[in-house]
């Protein structure tokens, strides 16, 4: 029964990891940008939410309504300035710039907010409430909500990219930037929109993790970025639903590892990631070889 519990918990945390991963996947899919500051930006979103809640005393969950647009605007601005000018130079420069950004953000948070961990909405009943399945399986409502949010975000992205006008523009620009430009699309603006979307999901990821666990300046890299990346690679690069599958596989691997020995939790996830890298480098869902 303990194993069933581990698997159920793993599947649910997989939703959280998919939420971590979809922004990373989107930025790479559209702009070919691997944003090494991805996780640190999620932590920034969490800290912004904490700041808003502390200053305005608004209900915890309502702060999402503020944080997501704020991060989306930041995403658009960063893409149009820093990331675009790095992209105009080379892939190497883009990596160096986002890595620099990651280190600057992480140490900035450390400097201004100390290394203390902070949780979002620690007094909410949503955080502690759970329901039982059978005698040994306790499921937290929060994890179910996060899983649902992840599925809704992925469905929404899928719908947006396939059906909306901007979605078509984004796909056109991702496929062939020059051709889209010739057809009258301003690819820089479209990149900005895609970055805004990605940063919106990054904000949700940071907020969700802040509620699920604790945020600290180093959470951005040692948890969010690395788990997001592992989920993306396990699931298959460039596939949104693969991302969910990757998140679930990572979550289950971690929970099974934790079941064996609590200190194996993170390691077990990485070992599964490495196994996928060796046995199926194109990921679980992707059929085409990765280049």
């Amino acid at each position, binding site marked *: 029964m303990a194993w069933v519990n581990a698997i159920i918990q793993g599947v649910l945390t997989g939703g959280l990891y998919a939420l971590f991963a979809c922004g990373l996947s989107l930025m*790479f899919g559209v702009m*070919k*940008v*691997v944003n*090494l500051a991805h996780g640190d930006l999620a932590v920034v979103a969490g800290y912004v939410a904490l700041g808003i809640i502390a200053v305005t005393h608004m209900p915890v969950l309502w702060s999402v309504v503020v944080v997501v647009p704020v991060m989306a605007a930041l995403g658009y601005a960063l893409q149009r300035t*820093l990331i675009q*000018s*790095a992209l105009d*130079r080379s*892939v*190497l*420069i*883009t*990596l*160096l*710039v986002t*890595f*620099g*950004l990651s*280190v*600057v953000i992480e*140490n*900035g948070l*450390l*400097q201004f907010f100390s290394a203390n961990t902070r949780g979002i909405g620690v007094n909410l009943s949503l955080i502690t409430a759970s329901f039982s399945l059978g005698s040994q399986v306790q499921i937290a409502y929060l994890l179910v909500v996060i899983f649902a949010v992840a599925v809704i975000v992925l469905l929404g992205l899928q719908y947006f990219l396939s059906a909306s006008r901007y979605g078509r523009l984004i796909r056109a620009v991702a496929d062939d930037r020059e051709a889209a430009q010739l057809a009258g699309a301003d690819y820089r603006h479209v990149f900005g929109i895609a970055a805004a979307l990605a940063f919106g999901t990054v904000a949700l990821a940071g907020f969700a993790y802040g509620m699920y666990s604790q945020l600290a300046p180093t959470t951005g*890299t*040692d948890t969010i*970025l*690395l788990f997001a*990346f*592992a989920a993306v*690679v396990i699931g298959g*690069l460039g596939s949104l639903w693969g991302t969910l599958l990757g998140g679930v596989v990572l979550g289950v691997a971690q929970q099974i590892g934790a079941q064996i020995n609590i*200190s194996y939790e*993170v*390691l077990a996830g*990485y*070992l599964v*990631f*490495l196994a996928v*890298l*060796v046995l199926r*480098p194109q990921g679980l869902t992707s059929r085409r070889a*990765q*280049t």
Partner: protein
Amino acid sequence: MSQVTQTLAPPVLDFRVTRSRRNVAWTGAVALAIVAVLAYFPYIFYPGTTAIMVQAFIVLTMASMWNLLAGYAGLVSVGQQAFVGLGAYFVLYLALHGTSPFWALPVAVVGCAVAGLPLWWLVSRLRSGYFAIATWVLAATIMLIIERFPSLGSGTGMPLPGFAGYNVALLTADTYWAGLAVTVASLLVIYLLLRSRLGLVLTAIRDDEVAARSSGARVALARMLVFVVAAAGCGAAGALLAIDQLQVQPSAVFSVQRTAEMAFATIIGGIGTIEGPIIGTAVFIVLQQELAPYNAWYLIILGLVAIGVALFAPRGLWGLADDRLNVRLFPVGYWLRFTPERTISQGAETRRQRMH
């Protein structure tokens, strides 16, 4: 008949392919002199100064290796702390089993090179940005595995044994000389590598990977070799770090901050030149010393400077200087040197004589 061929003959251009615009002999002599002076430092400076120099040696070794990876082979690794950590732990392990840490250092270098092979096999499946994060995951994984060993101090690490009865002044001096030796060896290895066939292959890959592949350049082999050399070099830096700090702590040696240090020093100094990391390391150490009382500020400032340099002066400080001076301290490229007109006519003269 002879007249016609004379007029139709292409203009004679005499040129020589050289490594440098200027004579390299004197740069070699200067380099030797600098190393000799540096080797004399422990006799004339306080241990405080040589301690800072040891830090500079560690950063320079790491930065030069990272530069070889990112600047020459196009492999942006953000997981080089894996090898820094492995190097430190090799020294710790050997010291716990009775080897002198200084003798453990070369073993750590070999160990890291050997470890680099399977790790390359793992991460080489991914490209550019995803390669970068994969190396990071690898470093995190190795740290988590090492933390499972209570005999190596688990998650908290342990002090480095093996220096009982060592004279403190002698230890400081020996550490300094070990650092100098590691740095000189690293720079020499990189210099010779880049002057060899491998350097030519790497330049070809950098300019046009597809063309390089189709001309028969063994791209994968070249990259693997670079990765293994960088693994060994970062391992040496990690071993030095352990000896310098007299303790090994997993969260410190496996910190991504190690990669931040090497990357920032390289970018600021000038990526893709051997001279760049040297300049960058000097800037790094000065900033670090000046901003030491302000905790994390030195990394914030270095990060901002590195972003600015990457965007607006991608060839770094050395690139800015090079535009004006045209000097190569480590000539690894090629120059076409045209001989003056006088020699051209002389060359034509001899040709004509041969024809008769």
